[in-house]
């Protein structure tokens, strides 16, 4: 094994850091604070990677251990289309976040109940609301239970599954044009 040498390209940045921050604790504190806040702004307004848990989106996401890439440019429902997987603040549990698929936008007609379970009643989604359903119909609490959801609750669109690395993929809406 070759002897370990200090990587030369790291010297200038480290010297810069030492010169500016070594005996200036206040400057170090404010710079750390600004860096953390910059990451916070990027995570909230641009892109973020979050973990998921729960069985309501099988087989798209597993019960544990998946991490997804969320595009925050779609917050409040801007540019959301039918078939998108979106993340929103929960309608029933204050403080919780939920991932489901959008099946209807304002003005669309959707079926209220699970197909095959009784009435075939359909309702029209009011202005500013959307209809969200999980992929695992039997184990998902979604718009079939709490009704149309205000689009203002949507916080972003899930565009890719990132971890586990072997299962990484871009998420598609699954809608195909009728030939």
């Amino acid at each position, binding site marked *: 094994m070759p002897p370990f040498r200090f990587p030369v390209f790291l010297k200038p940045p480290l010297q810069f850091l030492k010169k500016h921050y070594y005996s200036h604790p206040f400057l170090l504190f404010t710079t750390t604070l600004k860096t953390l806040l910059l990451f916070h702004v990027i995570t909230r307004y641009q892109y973020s990677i979050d973990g998921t848990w729960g069985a309501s989106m099988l087989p798209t996401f597993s019960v544990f251990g998946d991490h997804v890439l969320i595009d925050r440019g779609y917050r*409040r429902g801007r540019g959301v289309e039918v078939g998108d997987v979106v993340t929103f603040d929960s309608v*029933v*549990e204050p403080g919780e976040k939920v991932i489901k698929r959008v099946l209807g936008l304002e003005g669309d007609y959707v079926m209220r109940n699970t197909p095959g379970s009784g009435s075939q009643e359909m309702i029209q989604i009011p202005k500013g609301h959307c209809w969200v359903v999980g992929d695992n119909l039997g184990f998902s609490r979604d718009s079939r239970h709490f009704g149309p959801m205000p689009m203002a609750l949507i916080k972003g669109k899930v565009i890719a599954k990132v971890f586990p690395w072997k299962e990484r993929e871009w998420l598609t809406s699954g809608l195909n044009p009728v030939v």
Partner: protein
Amino acid sequence: MTTRRLFSSFNRGTQYGQFARVFGYNLFIFATWIPAVIFFHDNIGEVTRISGPSMYPYLNTSYNENQKEDRCWVNKFRPTQNLQRGMLVSFRSPYHPEVLAIKRVIAVEGDRVITHAPYPLPIADVPAGHVWVEGDNRDANKTLDSNHYGPIPLNLIQGRVTHVLWPWTSFGAVRWWEFKGRTRVLKGRKESALRF
């Protein structure tokens, strides 16, 4: 090589070069404080203007006289913690996601509200995790509230109006505990609220 010629004014010590260097540096330092301001506005509080007559006569008292809008302080730190009937909240409107609405909380989860037109049913139960909001205006046509779109989820609420800053005549804390509304509310218990 062209960049060296373009930016050589910074190094040559000319007046314009020195000014541009110092100005650019200060601009950069100013820009690094922008995420802190954004964080403050999203999580701690901000000053907002009230537009519209839905909270008349409590807010925008001069709506019939001039175009001046009230300014108030919205507290964004944990706005839904310990929410009581009578508090003023700021939330994204369910009908228009890009519009911020300010209304008063009339009923919390578990309560029963006697509703006005255009709500289709005479009595509404507020489910778990929701609140019923209404505007103060006597004229029901001037306010778009829970009588139109029903109870709103707690996660829609992003701030609580705690103080009025302008005009000076109504400066001070919002005294939500002194509010007596005209809507009849049958108070219930949180545990008996409908859960989806």
